[in-house]
């Protein structure tokens, strides 16, 4: 798939119009995972606009976003950066064989108190 198509696909999956962004940075100011991210929440918009999708799908930020929706709640332009991040994540995990969490890893990650909810949500986030 060409880069242009991928950018279009991200816009389609996310339902976000990145051109609405006014680059205020309130998403990055609100993000609890800001320091762990290589591409920061406010930068997602320009990556999609510029069509630099390769960098985006290879970004560590995809797994660092906690889906806490603080950026969605506070964005003054209704751009919803978390939706863009999730759409990029979908691009990765919808490809055959691509996954960010293998069932083999699971046992060692568990402890006696681990709630089912944690596993379910982690699988939703990391795998198709």
């Amino acid at each position, binding site marked *: 798939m060409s880069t242009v198509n991928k950018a279009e696909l991200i816009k389609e999956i996310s339902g976000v119009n990145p051109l*609405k962004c*006014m*680059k*205020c*940075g*309130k*998403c*990055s*100011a*609100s*993000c609890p995972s*800001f*320091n762990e991210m290589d591409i*920061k929440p*406010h930068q997602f918009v320009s990556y999609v606009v510029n069509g630099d999708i390769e960098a985006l799908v290879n970004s560590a930020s995809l797994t660092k976003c906690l889906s806490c929706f*603080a950026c969605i709640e*506070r*964005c*003054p*332009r*209704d751009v919803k950066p978390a939706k863009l991040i999730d759409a990029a994540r979908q691009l990765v995990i919808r490809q055959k064989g691509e996954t960010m969490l293998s069932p083999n890893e699971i046992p060692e990650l568990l402890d006696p108190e681990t709630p089912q909810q944690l596993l379910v949500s982690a699988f939703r986030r990391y795998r198709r």
Partner: protein
Amino acid sequence: MQRIGVFVCHCGSNIAATVDVKKVVEMVKTEPGVIHAEDYQYMCSEAGQAKIIEAVKEHKLNGLVVCSCSPRMHEATFRKCAERAGINPYMVEIANIREHCSWIHKDMDEATEKAVILARAAIAKVNLNAPLQAGESGVVKRALVIGGGIAGIQTALDIADAGFPVDIVEKEPSIGGRMSQLDKTFPTLDCSACILTPKMVEAAAHPNITIHTYSEVENVSGFVGNFTVEIRKKARSIDMDKCTGCGLCQEKCPMKKTPSEFNRGLGNRSAIYTPFAQAIPNVPVIDRNACLKFKTGKCGICSTVCAAGAIDYTQVDTMVTEKYGAIVVATGFDMIKLDKYDEYAYSQSKDVITSLELERVMNAAGPTKGHLERLSDGKAPKEIVFIQCVGSRCADGRGKGYCSKICCMYTAKHAMLIRDKYPDVNVTVFYIDVRTPGKNFDEFYRRAVENYGVNYVKGQVGKVIPQPDGKLLVQGVDLIDNKQILKEADMVVLAAAIEPNPDVRKIATMLTASIDNDNFLTEAHAKLRPVESPTAGIFLSGVCQGPKDIPETVAQAGAAAVKAIGLLAKDKLMTNPCTAKSDELLCNGCSKCANVCPYGAISYEVKEINDHGIRETRRVAQVNNALCQGCGACTVACPSGAMDLQGFSNRQIIAEVDAICR
């Protein structure tokens, strides 16, 4: 049969780029009644108008169709042109092929086809036009200004200086408005009160100005040149003629715990109060909701201490009815409520304040006597953070879509004043863009950065986090460094968006003045008629029309005054001749038309009618042309089809419908 000329304008390339004007000329030549058709670069220009006049003479035309921009733009121009050519100005119709055609369509064939159809509709209408004569109406030589802030005061002074009487209606107990609450003004840093109060005094002393404070406009009727306005003068509970303004009543009033509106609720006032020391008039009012006398019947101390005997608990609201030729709206603005912005902890912490509250804190007459201090514990702050664009430029349904325009400059002012007076206080400003267009404005902002060391950070704040020790942790972002910032501050100041005074919608409805979704009043033309409402005789002054700072407000206030003076200086106004007219032969006197008329323009007369040779005495409708505004409600209500609207007759509109559906 009419002899019609069709004139197709290129409007440079505005029309000609999308509409094949030559083809339009060719296509309309065969329309019934069309004797002549031509196109020209700019029909509205002197040369274009000369072509029209020439064609009228050469072809003995008696009707004109101009295919051009919106009639709202140049209908008046072409009507005057027709008059110069010796034909009745109401024999002109405009086909709007710019706003309604060339500007919104791309495909040339499609746009051309539509332009031809629009031209045909106009031609069909002109075929049925009849010459109309405009009537005359008088002008009441008195103006009303609604709102007594700097905009209203300036407009009133300018109109009064030109020799016309003006009334100011202000809902607060004193004139002065928002400007009276400010401490210093940009870009010169002079004291707001020092430049405002002389104007207030001048207005109060001006022989042509009458000030109604603590009053509201209750009802408006009439039309340009002849408005009738009812003003409610709220019961002040003080005899204004007796009160000497000594202030003893306020001093002795036991109910001192009412939040002061003037100090934005940061301090308290008594139940009997003047909002501020320089109030005009310097006569207090009793806040009946706070007054012990009104709540319990006991007390009455103010009455006891008043040597002048001015206190009158029995006063009631009074109504004043006055006639005006022109009305200026100067209702101003307020800051938005911040209840939807709790991430900035405005409602959670006393040390998070709005910029207008900071003005009061910095003001020597304010709640802290001008000392910069935290409102929670009175301590002197060492770190202050300013947050810009709170509720401005929003598209999320929480805030306003527009830029409030004044915040960048007043924040630079605040930052500079603080750094000047308290050099040990650090000031950080989080901004999205710094917008400082205006004379000496950007220089002013640069001074804050370069000479006063104000720290400007490009980026927004996500959350203000109150700490157990009373400090405020500001979590923001520096987009240039690409870093998240956690900054401990003692005070946070929010540049909250401004919005038009919420009362303005009610007033706009009374005036039938158009208003936009943000509650700003709409101007008649965004560029060429910025101080007039589309409703004739209504003028706009100050922030009610859009965000502006003091210099701009004063300039616009003057402009609004000039427009009002221009109206008041006329002895007669031409009235709209497109009024209703009843056909006595068809009228059966049923009164349906009179019932729907909003202007009471229809009356009945019993007269003898010669109905096809049969003479009989009937009750028939009569339209008073001076009162009729030409809405047409009666024409549709009339069951017998007797009532019709001149200029928009049933036959004319049906001819347009037919032409479009052909």
